[in-house]
């Protein structure tokens, strides 16, 4: 009989499983369980009740008195698979009347599933191998990481942070560094930093994956190794500020790294930093950029980090931009469907969710959909193309760069 090891579930998580009132508020707005597919076991309530039922069968009072009950392997595997059909977007945390921190619960549930050999799922194993072997989830060689910067090397001086020790370390992230369709995001960010005369650099080919993918899929031990390596590099580069343009990298460095080791530098997302640069008049956005723009709040930036105003303030600073809000915005923002390993393991589900987000943007009357996360960008752009929508996908830094004279 397979005995579940519940010592991998956090004390607080175990409390929270009992604190769930089964009210179902989370089921209505859950992008994967309630909206894209009506499957109770994918919803937060479904997962909580099923896992609680399983461990109580083996550790509850009845189990203590009459012995633990066997849980069929198929049922355990079903729970594991359904648990990964979750983007960890945090919408359930926002609506939960019992104030359960579901983001922590889902990440911890995945750690528990990994510890009990029920996860990761086969598609995630490929990514894990890639991160462990190449320091990135895209199976790309380390030597290609800084290739994105070749296009602007004559135009901009990007310092080697490990050798030249700039004041600001620009943490590029794997998606912007390797995906040929997203590279412009890194290029635009570098151009914006250069225009503000920021003394900045990158870790170049020495930058490692931030570990977000590993953490979100429950692989805490593998993530720890990545995090430790990156912290060592941060220490070596010793910047006073780390700026990440990827929402996932930002959340991970800001919130998860301090649990492993000390990050000496201040950590900001690019939207925060650009806001500061605009306030200090180091960036002057004076060129008109025409468009009815709607902003998609990336989950890692919005619900996970509570940064809602910064990107909007930047958009409002750009002459010619008319900002329109989608019906579901800010903390109620609908997820793009890609996060939490969903796009890797369940691409069709991810597409279904991103298509809903595109409909949100179209209904708002926007002609441009803007975001601040390469992963959301990738997913929403694919959905715009698949749907044949007239919306134009844009990264916030692209608009900022376009608004700079010269």
């Amino acid at each position: 009989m397979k005995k579940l090891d519940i010592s991998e579930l956090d004390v607080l998580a175990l409390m929270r499983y009992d604190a769930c009132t089964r009210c179902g508020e989370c089921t209505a707005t859950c992008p994967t369980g309630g909206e894209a597919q009506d499957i109770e076991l994918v919803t937060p309530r479904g997962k909580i009740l099923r896992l609680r039922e399983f461990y109580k069968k083996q550790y509850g009072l009845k189990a203590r008195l009459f012995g633990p009950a066997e849980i069929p392997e198929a049922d355990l595997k079903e729970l594991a698979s359904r648990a990964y059909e979750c983007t960890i977007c945090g919408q359930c945390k926002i609506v939960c009347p019992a104030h359960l921190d579901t983001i922590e619960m889902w990440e911890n549930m995945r750690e528990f599933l990994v510890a009990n050999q029920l996860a990761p799922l086969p598609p995630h194993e490929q990514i894990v191998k890639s991160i462990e072997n190449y320091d990135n989830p895209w199976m790309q060689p380390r030597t290609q990481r800084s290739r994105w910067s070749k296009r602007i090397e004559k135009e901009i001086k990007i310092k080697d942070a490990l050798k030249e020790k700039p004041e600001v370390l620009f943490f590029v992230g794997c998606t912007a560094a390797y995906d040929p369709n997203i590279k412009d995001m890194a290029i635009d960010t570098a151009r914006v930093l250069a225009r503000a005369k920021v003394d900045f650099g990158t870790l170049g080919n020495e930058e490692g994956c931030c570990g977000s993918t590993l953490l979100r899929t429950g692989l805490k031990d593998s993530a720890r190794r990545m995090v430790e390596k990156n912290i060592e590099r941060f220490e070596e580069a010793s910047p006073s500020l780390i700026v990440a343009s990827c929402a996932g990298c930002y959340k991970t460095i800001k919130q998860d790294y301090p649990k492993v080791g000390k990050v000496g530098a201040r950590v900001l997302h690019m939207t925060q930093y650009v806001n500061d640069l605009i306030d200090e008049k180091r960036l002057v956005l004076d060129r008109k950029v025409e468009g009815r723009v709607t902003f998609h709040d990336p989950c890692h930036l919005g619900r996970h980090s509570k940064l809602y105003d910064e990107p909007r303030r930047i958009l409002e600073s750009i002459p010619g931009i008319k900002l329109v809000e989608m019906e579901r915005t800010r903390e109620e923002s609908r997820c793009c469907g890609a996060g939490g390993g969903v796009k890797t393991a369940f691409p069709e589900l991810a597409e279904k969710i991103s298509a809903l987000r595109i409909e949100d943007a179209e209904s708002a009357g926007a002609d441009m959909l803007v975001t601040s996360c390469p992963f959301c960008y990738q997913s929403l752009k694919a959905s715009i193309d698949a749907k044949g929508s007239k919306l134009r996908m844009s990264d916030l830094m692209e608009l900022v760069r376009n608004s700079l004279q010269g």
Partner: protein
Amino acid sequence: MSDGRYLKDKAWLYLPFFAGLLIISAIILLLPYETVYVGSRTYLRFFLVTIVLCVGVFFLGTLYNVLLWMRGKGLVGSPEGRLVRLIPKAVRFFLSRRFGKASAVLVKDALYLSKLKDRSATRWLMHLLILGGFIATFVLDLIVTFSLDLLRYEPMISETGWAKVWIRDFGFELAGTMMLLGLVIAAVRRFVQKPKIVRTELPDAVSIVFLLVVVLGGFLLEGIGLLANMPGHEVNHEYSFLGYALSLAMPSSWGQYYDQVWLVHGVMSALFIAYIPFSKLFHMIATPIAIEAEQMLPSGVRT
């Protein structure tokens, strides 16, 4: 971990726990109960034995659930040892300034349900009525028992005393009415309207029906007492407004069954208390603890 340490942890937890349980049981059994309404001393004794057993089951069930939490990641030692070491931390937390802030969070989030209010006024009202009525009944029970059996407070005993009229009659009636209204909303929502987010399984149905039986039993008992003009029910009927309305609709012959209904209501209430740790109603205890623990536990436990 050594056997000695393990046994020591167990002793530190279970000895005070059972001593506390023994003291509570002794208090329940040894109070004089000279002013209770039930006439049969046999029924009273049967009820007292039942309530002692049920309170024991409630505390044991709660302790068992808490020890299950203690098996989780983030703390070291046996579950008993972890709990024993957390108790002084919890006491220090209650005595610290942080507790003031934490209590405000507790009242706002766990009792007032601020988040639910913004999302659904009906469900917020429903929950507030049930929880508010439940807490009010519990507090009133403590006040009445203390003032009757220990203080022998005359205004609580006399038929026309202010405390008898406003606390024993009106207070309980109001708390019961709150619970009844909340439960009716819950039952209509769950069994008639059936919105998509509601899933009714046995534990959901049992919790509502059980609580409804207990609350309605209380009103029925009050009505029978008023109908029969039992001692304590002779004047000021209108303060027990719902029980009084029920008494007007009852056949006069029901008056003779007061003691039997009292016993059934008492035993059902006791069984309900025992049921809490094993039901979805345990969230009444777990939710406030989870909210407070988030602020109290060392950060390592939360990672």
